[in-house]
């Protein structure tokens, strides 16, 4: 049995974008706050803090997850990817990020990190998504700026590029 008491901070360790990280968290600390405040990784955004907007979406153990609906202590031992891990090298965007730039799929950028993380995993699992499937999938995100059309176009474009040159991911 291993009970973490409410009023103390406890060591939390996980793999973040391929590197081991650790810091301390009270049991009640949300993973969003842990990533941003304890680890300084501010790419993951926080909108609604109750699972509705999708801004905080990251990947935990290979599946999309709302970081605001996850406790830091729950993530102990997990493998996590965030938007900071998308670009293959400094100065170069991923295929998906590049498609977002070309299609103007972001304006203020608040929703973007979450949508990128959602789509990145989705396109790995579904190499030839239809527009309808992507629309349904994007239903898990709110964007107040773009009207979604350029996001959809970028996702379809990225899927096409990834089919042609998958190594570029």
């Amino acid at each position, binding site marked *: 049995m*291993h009970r973490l008491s409410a009023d103390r901070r406890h060591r939390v360790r996980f793999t973040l974008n391929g590197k081991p990280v650790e810091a301390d968290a009270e049991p*009640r600390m949300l993973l969003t706050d842990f990533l941003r405040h304890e680890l300084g990784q501010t790419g993951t955004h926080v909108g609604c*803090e109750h699972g509705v907007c999708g801004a905080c*979406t990251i990947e935990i153990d290979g599946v*999309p*997850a709302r970081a605001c609906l996850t406790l830091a202590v729950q993530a102990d031992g997990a493998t996590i990817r965030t938007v900071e891990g998308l670009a293959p090298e400094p100065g170069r965007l991923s295929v998906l990020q590049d498609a977002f730039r070309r299609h103007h799929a972001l304006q203020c950028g608040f929703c973007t990190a979450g949508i990128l993380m*959602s789509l990145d995993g989705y396109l790995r699992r579904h190499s030839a998504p239809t527009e309808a499937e992507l629309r349904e999938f994007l*239903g*898990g995100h709110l964007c107040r700026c773009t009207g979604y059309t350029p996001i959809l176009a970028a996702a379809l474009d990225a899927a096409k590029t990834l089919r042609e040159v998958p190594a570029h991911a």
Partner: protein
Amino acid sequence: MKPARFDYQRADTLAEVHAALAEYGNDARVMAGGQTLMPMLSMRLARPKLLVDIMHLPELARIEADAKVIRIGAGVRQAELLAWPELAQRQPLLASALPWVGHAQTRSRGTVCGSVAHADPSAELPLAMLALDGSIELSAGRKRRSVTAQDFFTGMMSTARGHDELIEAVSIPTRRAGTGTAFAEFGRRHGDFAIVACAAVVAADRVTLAVGGVGDKPERRDFPALDGGALDDALNAFAWDLDARDDLHATAAYRRELVRRMGRDTIEEARRCIA
């Protein structure tokens, strides 16, 4: 919005979960996927003293099936059930209801049993459980019992679960030959809570319609095989018997009308699917 303080325990054994629930009772909450519980904690609608995380118990993470039932353990995520290759053939109603549960980004974490445990009146899985004569397996230490969905959902987010009981699994009968099923939902946006959701199970001589989103829990009615005006009358009677209420999203009258129309459409679709 940040949760109030609680202790957190990642359980390594089932016995540990039972001991924690026995010790804390109503002050403990079981944490599975967290997709409903976390918002409640952050909004401080729930303020448990202890959270017991059950997602590291391999014995709860299984989908098991025999000729009669599908048993879904408390650790099975909604996306895992949806991706189970046998689902559509063994229980097509679940396969059509699951895509309506939240979004892909929450189904990846949320569990089937967690949704049943929360018993939101507009949630799809409690509705499917009720339509399909599902049952809920509860355990407290060595005591075990199984409760039918009909008896389990007792009101607005309230169930027959005792404070010391863990939902270990839910069991859902597999599709019987000669039956058809269908599911339909109406909401403002996909992924929103249903204004009305309908699940129908039909056979040559009978019809079951369950509806969610109308009263404070999912409700079901069984009819003989009716058609035409007689079916409309039966649906109208059902709609009036439901304790429909006005809220921000729809009036009671609108919900009743959805029950009549969508109920009929769902039953007809289920009839077309009889196999």
